[in-house]
């Protein structure tokens, strides 16, 4: 039962966020501060999701740095994942 409620709650919340501004009537303008703030949401939220895994767990830090460099240079998600996993195993093997 709890699981079903969680599932329904997650689905509703997620869809509401996705639909939020798409279902607003065209005439309505968003406050300027709000629009400016939204610009920083992906950079802040996406970074907050991965940062603890890389910055707190010391053995994962070097692999995280490799992944950041690959992502920065080539902007390819798959290459970033492969490079990061390979680096994680390489640095573990070095020890």
């Amino acid at each position: 039962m709890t699981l079903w409620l969680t599932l329904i709650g997650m689905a509703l919340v997620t869809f509401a966020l996705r639909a939020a501004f798409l279902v607003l009537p065209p005439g309505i303008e968003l406050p300027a501060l709000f629009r400016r703030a939204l610009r920083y949401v992906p950079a802040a939220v996406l970074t907050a999701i991965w940062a603890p895994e890389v910055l707190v767990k010391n053995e994962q830090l070097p692999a995280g740095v490799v992944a950041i460099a690959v992502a920065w240079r080539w902007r390819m998600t798959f290459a970033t994942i492969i490079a990061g996993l390979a680096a994680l195993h390489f640095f573990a093997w070095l020890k």
Partner: protein
Amino acid sequence: MLLAVIPFGIITGVAMVASGIPPLVAMLMSIVVFAGASMVASAQLLASNTPIVLVILTTLVINLRFMMYSASLRTHFAHAPLKQRLAVAYLTADNVYALVLNRFAEHPDDPGKFEYFLGAGLLVWAVWQGAVLAGILIGAGVPPAWRLEFAAPLAFIALSIPFLRDRATVIAALAAAVAVVAFQDVPLRLNIILAAATGIAAGLVFAKRK
């Protein structure tokens, strides 16, 4: 772009069944929620018997970026029929958004915006669901020594970097990274909410300063 959906989808499927969610419910969750990061986080929280309200609150914070995407997509779809806007809402995912917005930036007056979004969205959706299904079927079959769980943060590194477009967005990301670690001991995973707020505030303040 599509290739990256596969490992992340597999990890999400594995994480859900590993936390005790029955396979059928996990697949249903993947279809109705369709947001990998929040599903991995919720699976971990469910496994540690976290109250349901907090699981949903965490989902809300992790998926807050979709609200930003919807505000940005609104400029392109404000005059589309409601059913098209609802379809766009459901199919909004990080990589679909990034792909489509880059395309719209290059071709701002493209008449087939909805068709383009629908094509990209459905393709990502189908590949994602297939990968999640594979992850659910593999279940606990992935040897822990492979450290496949590290692919989830790696996917988010790759997703976040393209959003660092100028100094202000870099400052926002750095501030969020520092805050999420500094607030690590705050209970209920509220550190993600605090870090998001800190990063956004830092970006706004830096941009204003100039």
